[in-house]
C-alpha cells in the first residue's frame, strides 16, 4: 500500500450528522420516508375512491378479518423477534441473534403464505382486480394493489433477512454486524407499521 493510500485509509469518513452510527442508517431512513409517501398516497387515494363511491362494499363483511387479525399478530411477533436479534447481537451472542433473525424471516414467510391463501380464497369467491359481486369495482382494484404492494415489501424483507443472516455468519465479530442488523430491523419494523395502517384502513374501517 502506498503512503498516500495508507493516509487515506486512516482518515475517518465524514460522520452522518443525523445518525452518527452510520450513513447506511440515514440512507435507510430516507428510503423509508420515500416509501411511506408511496403507501400514504395509496391509502389517501383509497380513501378518496371510497368517499366518492355510492356502493362501496363493507370490507370486514366481505374480506373477513379473522385471518388478517392473526396475520397482524404474526407481524407484531416478528417485530419482537427482530429486536431480540439485535439485543442478542449487542450482547455478543451471534448464534442467538441468527436464530431470532431466522424466526423473523419465518414469520414474514408465513405472513406471505397466509396472504396468498387469502387472495386465492377471495378470487374464488369473485373478487377480481376489475370487478366483484358486492359493489364498486374499484374495491377489488384498490385491495389487490395496496395489499399486493405490502406483500411485495414483506417478500423483499424475507430475502433481505436471509441475506443478513449470511452477513452475520461471515463476520467474525458480532459487533461488526450490529449496524447492518439495526438497519434491516428499521425496514422490517416499517413493514409492520405499514401493515397496522393497511389492516385498519382496508379491513376494519
Amino acid at each position, binding site marked *: 500500500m502506498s503512503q498516500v493510500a495508507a493516509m487515506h485509509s486512516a482518515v475517518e469518513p465524514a460522520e452522518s450528522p443525523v445518525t452518527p452510527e452510520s450513513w447506511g442508517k440515514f440512507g435507510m431512513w430516507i428510503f423509508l420516508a420515500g416509501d411511506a409517501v408511496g403507501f400514504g398516497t395509496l391509502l389517501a387515494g383509497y380513501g378518496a375512491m371510497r368517499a366518492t363511491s355510492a356502493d362501496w362494499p363493507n370490507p370486514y363483511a366481505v374480506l373477513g378479518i379473522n385471518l388478517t387479525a392473526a396475520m397482524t399478530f404474526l407481524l*407484531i411477533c416478528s417485530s419482537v423477534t427482530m429486536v431480540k436479534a439485535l*439485543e442478542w447481537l449487542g450482547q455478543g451472542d451471534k448464534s442467538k441473534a441468527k436464530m431470532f433473525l431466522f424466526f423473523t424471516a419465518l414469520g414474514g414467510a408465513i405472513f406471505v403464505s397466509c396472504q396468498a391463501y387469502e387472495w386465492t380464497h377471495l378470487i374464488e369467491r369473485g373478487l377480481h382486480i376489475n370487478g366483484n359481486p358486492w359493489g364498486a369495482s374499484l374495491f377489488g382494484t384498490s385491495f389487490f394493489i395496496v395489499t399486493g404492494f405490502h406483500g411485495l415489501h414483506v417478500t423483499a424483507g424475507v430475502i433481505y433477512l436471509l441475506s443478513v443472516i449470511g452477513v452475520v455468519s461471515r463476520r467474525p465479530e458480532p459487533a461488526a454486524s450490529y*449496524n447492518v442488523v439495526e438497519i434491516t430491523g428499521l425496514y422490517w419494523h416499517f413493514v409492520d407499521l405499514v401493515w397496522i395502517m393497511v389492516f*385498519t384502513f382496508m379491513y376494519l374501517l
Partner: protein
Amino acid sequence: MAATTHAHAATAEHKHPNYMAIFWTLAVLTIVELIVVFLPFAKFTNGVMLCALALAKAILVAMYFMHLRFELRTLAMIAVTPLVIATLLVFVLLPDAFAVAHKSEVKKGAESAASEKH
C-alpha cells in the same frame, strides 16, 4: 482494511426498552380494535376510534422498535414528514371527492325528476 471498516461500523448501541411490554401493548390494542369494529356506535365514531388505535400502534412501533425515541429530533422530523404529506394529500383530494358526490347527487335528482314526469 476490511477489519478496520467493520471495527468502525461497530458503534454505540441503543438503549433496549422493555420490548415484551411493547409487544403486549400492541397485542392488546389489536384486540381492542377488533372489539371496536363490532361496537354499536355511529360509523364516524368507530372510524375515529380505529384511526386513533392504529396511530397509537404505529407510534409505539416507530418510537420503541425503530428506536426513534432515542434518535436525534431531526431524524424524527424526517420520519414524520410522510405522515404530514399524506394528511395534506387527503385535504387536496377532499374537494374532488365532494365534487363527484355532488355531481352524482345532481344526476340522481335529475333522473328521479325525469322518472316522475313519465
